[in-house]
């Protein structure tokens, strides 16, 4: 999940009767599955929650370019280079679609990006893990994008119109990302050398648990979920989505001929679901708080790019102003 632990500012749900008429009308609209549009009245907390969630989602796309960019210069064939570059470019694009949706709520993009750069805003914990070998480009596509897709598909029906529409575009474009990743791994597992196969297993070992953490804390530790679900910003619980992801992923893992670093992973015949071991939530909260392997590096890289580009952006504005004066 690209947005984790989004604060809603409320732990207790109001009933329709407790709401004033405006809010009640708003909630009924949501209950009727009618999209909320930018100029509609909305509770302040809904607006703020959305800004938080959409900006977090957008930041994740932008920061998410970095671990893959780390291997773009070293992609081993021209075809892989083109695929990876197109994928990273899509991520930049998805970030921009999302910022664009966020701006319809009256938020300012540059202000929200400042929050990313000074640590006030979060992004998905997954991007704070390093990409250490080429197989990571496969694993990131397969597991990380796979988890993101499980999260994003229901968001196409999220209650806020511009967010839902951005997600439709993102999902359509993202379908190649996961395939691209899986194919990298499958090629190495089926036709690669022993060294390449070891590379794949090593990569899965490192990304397995962090991918499961992407869905956020388990439902009992997810105090904001109830409000987000009532507003239909969020449509399924963290655990539900995590389970869905796991159920679709384990057969693919077996197809690769790889294993998960989880001795407790097993199929339950009765429920029809896979069961898995205990997630290390301490690690998750550490990474979210800024103490992951790459937190500092990632934020620093983003800040550096934008700070270094200030003179360029200023020049473009100065030139546009000059032109306008000349035309006048």
């Amino acid at each position, binding site marked *: 999940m690209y947005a984790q632990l989004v604060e809603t500012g409320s732990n207790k749900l109001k009933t329709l009767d407790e709401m004033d008429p405006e809010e009640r009308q708003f909630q009924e609209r949501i209950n009727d599955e009618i999209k909320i549009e930018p100029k509609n009245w909305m509770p302040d907390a809904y607006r703020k929650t959305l800004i938080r969630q959409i900006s977090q989602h957008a930041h994740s796309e*932008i920061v998410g*370019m*970095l671990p893959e*960019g780390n291997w*773009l*210069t*070293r*992609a*081993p*064939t*021209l*075809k*892989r*280079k*083109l695929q990876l*570059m*197109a994928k*990273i*470019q899509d991520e*930049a*694009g998805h*970030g*921009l679609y999302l*910022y664009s949706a966020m701006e319809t709520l009256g938020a300012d993009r540059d202000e929200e990006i400042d929050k990313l750069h000074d640590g006030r805003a979060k992004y998905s914990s997954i991007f704070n893990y390093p990409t250490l070998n*080429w197989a990571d480009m496969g694993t990131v596509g397969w597991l990380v994008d796979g988890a993101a897709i499980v999260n994003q598909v229901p968001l196409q029906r999220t209650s806020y119109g511009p967010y839902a529409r951005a997600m439709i575009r993102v999902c359509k474009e993202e379908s190649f990302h996961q395939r691209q990743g899986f194919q*990298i791994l499958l*090629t*190495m597992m089926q*036709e*690669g*050398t022993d*060294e*390449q196969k070891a590379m794949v297993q090593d990569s899965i070992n490192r990304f397995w648990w962090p991918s499961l953490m992407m869905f956020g804390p388990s439902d009992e530790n997810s105090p904001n979920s109830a409000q987000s679900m009532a507003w239909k910003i969020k449509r399924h619980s963290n655990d539900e989505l995590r389970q869905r992801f796991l159920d679709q992923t384990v057969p693919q893992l077996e197809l690769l001929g790889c294993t998960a670093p989880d001795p407790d992973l097993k199929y339950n015949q009765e429920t029809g679901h896979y069961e898995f071991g205990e997630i290390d939530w301490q690690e998750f909260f550490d990474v979210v708080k800024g103490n992951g392997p790459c937190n500092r590096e990632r934020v620093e*890289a*983003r800040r*550096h*790019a*934008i700070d*270094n*580009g*200030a*003179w*360029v*952006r*200023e*020049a*473009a504005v*100065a*030139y546009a102003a*000059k032109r306008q004066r000349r035309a006048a």
Partner: protein
Amino acid sequence: MQNMAQKNIAQTTQTPLTDCLLRLGDNALVLGQRHAQLCGKAPALEEELALMNVGLDLFGQARNWLGYAAELMAAERATDKVDADQLAFRRDAQDFRNLLLVEQPNGDFADIIGRQFLFDAWHVHLLDGLAHSSDPRIAEVAAKSLKEATYHLRRSSEWVIRLGDGTEESHTRMQRALNNLWQFTGELLQADEIDQAMLAAGIAPDLQTVATRWKATVEEVLEEATLERPSYDAWMYTGGKVGHHTEHLGFLLAEMQYLPRAYPDATVW
């Protein structure tokens, strides 16, 4: 493993035509690689997409030119073991035929734009000529690449103008970038034996014509950008076209070729 994949592709038997294709392919590949290095470092988010679009176009062009070169080389050597990837990842610096201009490091955004503009202004006129090549395959690739390069030139010219005529700081940076890069423009315009052989065969256009058009484009844009054009008579650093490169290319290749070199037995990725 035994195969040719382990070895460097040496330059012993190639013809002027393969050399010409390597020049085209290597220009696109090396400049594309410079764009790959820019990922996540653009001065604005919008510019990330734009730079990567240019990179994607260039890698696509590289694949076409090098693919054709590889076919010719394989035929010459009666082997099917040469492909575009081997040309990209298994040649050492002295066997690359790209212009010195495109291998220059990224530096600041003025350096990046200056390099791109000086190249684009040449590339479009060259591709325009190649689109009428007597070799139908070259004509086809050139016609497709020309559309891409025309857009690249539009963008890079606009940025040269914005930076040149923007703020005092951007003007200073743009002028400095131009002055530094200028010494590498000589070999864009100077025909050698290979260029002459290609011209004689009707495969490539006359570099004199390309040079005249390049100068016109450069002069027009620099004037609008309020930038001073360095002298055409300035001393020029040449050699890329025959494999004598600046020190930068070796590092670019070391990074780009790392995986195939570190895992020589791997035949698929």
